């Protein structure tokens, strides 16, 4: 017998959620077969079998949250030889655990005009079910549908939400035993129907919450602010987009900021660093992450080796990553390894803001709106396009002067963007 353990699927993963089992107890398993889909803090990933055998028992049902290294199933491998004595109760228990197949009485389907071979085309689901799944961070593929033809309907999603919540509660006895806030402080009288509604926390938001607390509690932040003249940057972007039109590439201001950060980090390796285990680590590679808002929460896809890429390559990569993040198809690799992060809220009209450092990175750049502002130039008022930058830094890694020197290089690059292309 071999225990199947919850694998470590990303460098920040601490626990995973069983999304879908692809094998049922009794199924033969070959090396490389997909056993189970696991949702990590970053993505939905397939877990394949390292050994051949028969799946004897599932220990963690779909929806359950399991720590890394904990058993999720039992595989009977070929060399066990103790089939009879192995676990006589396992099969019986499995049979009892298995969902009652007769309960899924299919709706009598309307008589089809022609009867082609049923070809499974994705998962059938109602628009309402899809929206609810999206809002609750559920993978609809992991929910079994009980509507006509197996369509996933609202009732199925509501059941899955309840199951996931129960599993999450059962799997987390270590929740800090703070006084249970049964009624939040703002809760009005219980008979008031406007009571706060509990919203299921998706994996992503749960992990993000833990890491943000870790960052704010452990990394002493300081903030450097600087206004950058963006006239040349806009002209450069217009020229670049003109030149790249044939290639179908469109460069955004954010792409240029990412490229400028990568170039500046190359010149200031002390900022491209981490503080961990009471030591300072300098990174040889420059991997820039950028914050992307998605339905499931904030994701930070990473442009690897951005310092070695041309502006147009950065633009192509950032667009592809942003789309993958929104579609939920971004891989764990594409979310890992960042050494610096750029967060841009300019498109929402935010003038300036300070971001929380994304551990174990040393710094994060917050980019505000690029717009015309009144500035003093050569002793007179002028109207110029400017952009407000705010660099948040982990003081354990860098001092003020180090951070300021980096920010100064960054500003210089953004005000002379030709330097990004040569």
């Amino acid at each position: 017998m071999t225990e199947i353990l919850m694998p470590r699927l990303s460098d920040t993963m601490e626990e995973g959620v069983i999304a879908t089992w692809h094998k049922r107890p009794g199924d033969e398993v070959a090396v490389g077969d997909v056993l189970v889909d696991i949702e990590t803090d970053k993505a939905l990933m397939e877990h394949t079998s390292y050994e051949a055998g028969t799946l004897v028992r599932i220990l963690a049902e779909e929806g359950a949250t399991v720590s890394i290294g904990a058993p999720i199933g039992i595989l009977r491998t070929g060399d066990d030889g103790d089939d009879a004595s192995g676990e006589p109760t396992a099969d019986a228990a499995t049979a009892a655990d298995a969902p009652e197949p007769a309960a899924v009485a299919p709706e009598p389907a309307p008589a089809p005009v022609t009867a082609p071979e049923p070809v499974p085309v994705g998962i059938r689901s109602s628009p309402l079910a899809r929206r609810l799944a999206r809002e609750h961070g559920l993978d609809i593929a992991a929910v079994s549908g009980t509507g006509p033809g197996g369509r996933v309907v609202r009732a199925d999603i509501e059941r899955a939400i309840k199951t996931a919540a129960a599993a999450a509660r059962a799997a987390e006895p270590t929740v800090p035993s703070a006084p249970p806030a049964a009624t939040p402080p703002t809760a009005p009288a219980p008979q008031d129907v406007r009571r706060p509604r509990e919203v299921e926390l998706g994996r992503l938001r749960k992990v993000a919450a833990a890491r943000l607390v870790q960052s704010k509690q452990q990394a002493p932040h300081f903030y450097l602010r600087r206004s950058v003249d963006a006239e040349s940057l806009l002209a450069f972007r217009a020229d670049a987009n003109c030149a790249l039109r044939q290639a179908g590439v469109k460069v955004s201001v954010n792409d240029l900021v990412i490229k400028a950060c990568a170039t500046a980090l190359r010149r200031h390796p002390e900022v491209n660093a981490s503080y961990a285990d009471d030591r300072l680590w300098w990174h040889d590679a420059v991997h820039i992450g950028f914050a992307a808002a998605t339905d499931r929460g904030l994701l930070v896809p990473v442009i690897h080796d951005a310092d070695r890429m041309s502006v147009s390559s950065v633009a192509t990569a950032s667009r592809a990553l942003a789309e993958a993040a929104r579609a939920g198809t971004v891989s764990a690799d594409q979310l890992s390894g960042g050494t610096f992060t750029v967060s841009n809220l300019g498109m929402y009209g935010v003038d300036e803001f300070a971001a929380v450092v994304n551990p174990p990175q040393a710094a994060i750049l917050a980019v505000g709106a690029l717009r015309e502002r009144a500035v003093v130039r050569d002793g007179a008022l002028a109207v110029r396009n400017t952009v407000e930058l705010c660099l948040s830094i982990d003081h354990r890694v860098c001092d003020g002067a180090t951070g300021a020197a980096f920010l100064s290089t960054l500003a210089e690059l953004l005000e002379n963007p030709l330097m990004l292309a040569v």
Partner: protein
Amino acid sequence: MPVMTYRQALRETLREELQRDPDVLLIGEEIGAFEGSYKITEGLLKEFGPRRVRDTPIAEEGFVGAAIGAAMLGLRPIVEIMTINFSLLALDQIVNHAAKIYGMFGGQTSVPLVIRTPGGGGQQLGATHSQNIELYYSFVPGLKVLAPSTPAEAAAMLRAAVRDDDPVLLLENLGLYNSRGQVPDTAEVAEIGRAAVVRPGRDLTLIGYSRMVSVALQVAERFAESGVEIEVVDLRSLRPLDRATLVESVRRTGCAVVAEDDWLTYGIGAEIAATIQEGAFDHLDAPVRRVAMAEVPLPYAKPLELAALPNVTDLATVVEQTLRATRRVGA
């Protein structure tokens, strides 16, 4: 609040409008001496005289055209077309003149015309006298089309129609003339273009107009016995259509069934279904379903006529199928 029939509510409102506004007059076939084929105008010739209650020859195109001219010159004529089937003879006057004069002539004159006309099958009047062709008029910009489902609505909508400066078709229903209901004596004036949630519920939106509203309410009552709450929406105004109320209801319930007393293909239900999928797509837990008449010229023979018209059982069957599809029943 007095209880009266749909017929009495219309008659009393016509009388009040004739008393209230000297520009109001009635025009139509056999509305005077014969007091109306369905006795809506009973007693009105005697009370208001032949200048205000005018019998016409059997010439729909002619008297609808005359009413349009009178409306353009400042009167407020209320035309009775004996049944909606005969309105086809006046189709050019209604569609090409009444609906278009205001827009085509730069707003120089509006056409404050009311056309009252009943539709509906179930009276053994044969295929040519039993239609619901309100769709033909609901399709045309420049017209307003109202379809009251109760005596109170009939009174309130007739008042609104007379006071409105545009041509309004008031669709009555032969099957409703004898239906009874409370009518407020406060001279309510309906808001044109507003649907009404006539029974709230959380499980399914059932949409109808005119006679189908009462059928829908019976279906809702039947399902209420097993704890299923069906919301019934009365369209009231077919043009302009109150899309917001429909969409808002389906966003709450997640599914909808439309009941109509006309043919399915290209019908009013098709417009409603399209409206719902556009406005509430992400809230739909099941396809929008439609229940309508059999796609045949309505038979004369009573059993066949009854079989062709949508009834409580037909509607309940489709409602149940939709509830099952969303696992609201039978889960």
